[in-house]
């Protein structure tokens, strides 16, 4: 399958500030791509360049084979965008908004079908200014679907929403993928990316610091799985001495690095037969969020240290 989005050596400067510094990634057609990064990392800038809302400084950007800035009019027929913090005419209803967008795009979508798939049918005739935050975001999603887009750009679509509204948006994203559309998603919620995304890229200080599927990123950048025992330091010392395993002590728990289930069983049976006191165990895996926080935090610590040195 060809790539829906192709980015090579993308650079964006704001005056002397380099917001995006030569990034590179591609998004396969029909996949869900999550673009992650802390605030100010260059996430929204990159997204806006892809949408044709901002010109790039340098590099090559192709969205559906088009240059978003110079061929924006053609591109906008084929993509749907919900910008971060979607705003619309105060006194216009979702149904009227869909009618308006259909006329602008020259499309003839089934308005009630669009409203029901974003779970907004009951508010079809409510003015925008009476909608809740989640309903406004759903209205944005509905408008983004009026032109039957090949790519949907969702810039932090669930920020500030309650869990039920967030899950409703997730369901829409899944259905977009089932229909063969490409979804480009930015989000602050790492669990959202982990659940929805086929591919993830993490951007930090204008650089991409990790790409791949969520599990690839976790295994490449995360810690190995750990067995976590509710036990004292004597257990940690015992495990290290007898099995040569890495064990750490923290707040009444002992964490032992284990690489597979056989190793886990060996540790558990050794501890059990040692006669030392312990009560329960869990197994710990890094989530995408753990990896993200560690990677971003480590880089910021490094930046702080180097700043301190100068």
């Amino acid at each position: 399958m060809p790539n829906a989005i192709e980015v090579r050596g993308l650079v964006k400067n704001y005056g002397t500030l380099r917001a995006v510094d030569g990034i590179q990634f591609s998004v396969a057609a029909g996949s869900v791509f999550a673009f992650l990064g802390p605030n100010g990392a260059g996430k929204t800038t990159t997204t806006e360049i892809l949408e044709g809302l901002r010109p790039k400084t340098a590099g090559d950007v192709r969205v559906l084979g088009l240059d978003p800035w110079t061929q924006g009019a053609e591109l906008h027929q084929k993509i749907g965008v919900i910008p971060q913090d979607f705003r619309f005419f105060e006194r216009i209803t979702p149904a009227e908004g869909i009618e308006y967008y259909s006329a602008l795009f020259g499309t003839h979508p089934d308005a009630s079908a669009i409203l029901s798939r974003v779970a907004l049918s009951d508010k079809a005739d409510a003015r925008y200014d009476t909608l809740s935050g989640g309903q406004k975001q759903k209205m944005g999603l509905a408008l983004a679907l009026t032109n039957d887009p090949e790519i949907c750009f969702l810039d932090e679509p669930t920020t500030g929403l309650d869990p039920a509204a967030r899950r409703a948006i997730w369901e829409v994203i899944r259905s977009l993928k089932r229909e063969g559309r490409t979804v480009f998603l930015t989000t602050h919620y790492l669990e959202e990316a982990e659940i929805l995304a086929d591919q993830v890229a993490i951007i930090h200080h204008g650089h991409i610091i990790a790409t791949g599927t969520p599990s690839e990123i976790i295994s490449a950048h995360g810690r190995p799985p750990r067995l976590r025992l509710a036990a004292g330091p004597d257990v940690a010392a015992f495990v290290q001495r007898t099995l040569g395993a890495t064990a750490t002590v923290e707040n009444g728990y002992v964490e032992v690095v284990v690489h597979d289930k056989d190793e886990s069983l060996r540790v558990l049976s050794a501890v059990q037969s040692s006669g030392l006191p312990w009560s329960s165990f869990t197994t710990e895996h890094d989530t995408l969020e753990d990896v993200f926080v560690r990677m971003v935090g480590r880089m910021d610590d490094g930046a702080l240290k180097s700043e301190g040195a100068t």
Partner: protein
Amino acid sequence: MKFRRIGSDLKVVYLQYRRNPAALFFSFFFPILIVALFGYIFSGAGSAVTTVVVLNEDQNSPASVAFLAALNNTSVVQVQVVGGSSWTPSNFAAELGSAGASVGLIVPAGFQANYSAHTNVSLALFVNPTDAASAGTAEGAIQGVANGFNLHAADGRAIITIASIHNVGSQIYTYIDYLIPGLIGFTILTSPMFSMVDIAASYRKDGIFRELSLTPLTRSEWLTSHILWYIVLTFINAGIMIAFGVGVFSAHLSIGLGMIPFLLVGTFLFVSIGMLSGTVAKTPESAAIIGNIITFPMMFLSGTFFPVSSFPPWLQTVAHVLPLYYVIDGLDQAMLFGNWNRAALDLTIVLVIAVVVFVMAVRFFRWRDS
């Protein structure tokens, strides 16, 4: 440019507007309010006394003296008889002007003889068109006294009549006649200025322009639909004010096709100025300030409430650089005086300014950031 897109944008503008009570008030109730207010204040039943400068050419005949005494007794005008070598019928108008008088009357020679013989005699009335309130008051008073004399002498047949001498037209204008074109100009200015400045600045701040940039709607289509919308509003406002002015205050207006170009071009101009002000401002707050700086001097100095010719000369110079002056002067020429040459000149000036501002507005107006 696609009409389908302009039409659908126009519909959104209309719905937004229809659901905004403040906008409805300013479009429909405010014009009536302002016509009523100024109409009652300035053309009310003349509590102020108007001085009528009289040149009596009938050698102070008893009939003419009686007529002037009756006029003085109406208590709405005060008769001031002048004489001497400097006051002659041929330079009466000039002398009135230099004496600062608004109303003058010549009682012709043979007034008594004609009156007694029941043959027609014409009084020459001189009025200052810029002081229409005095003119109207004086005309009413003189007409009333003349009617009384006619009734007394000849069972109401018109013997004494007023031949009005006027520099630009054949009828007497009242304040309301000047007020209506001025107020139409006022709404042509204020209705687009106040809302376009705000729309231009707040839609940019709220990202609505960005949102629209992701659709096939173009900037010129968007501007066109807004210009069309304010033209519709201008016609509604003008219609309401004319109907109210004519119906309630008996304004003498010729309502013809001549005013239409001014409604079109004037609205085009102020939508463009509003758009430009809102576009160059950094925030909605500074846009409002820029809008007010542009709007307020024009609101009062362009002949909206008072004729520009009644201003001191330096203020007239100021008025002549304000675009609204040419809209209102053109409306005056078209609706009151039928002076089409001057109306065409006014229209040309407004059109040129409008095109320049429109081009600048389109040039500076951006959907997207860079």
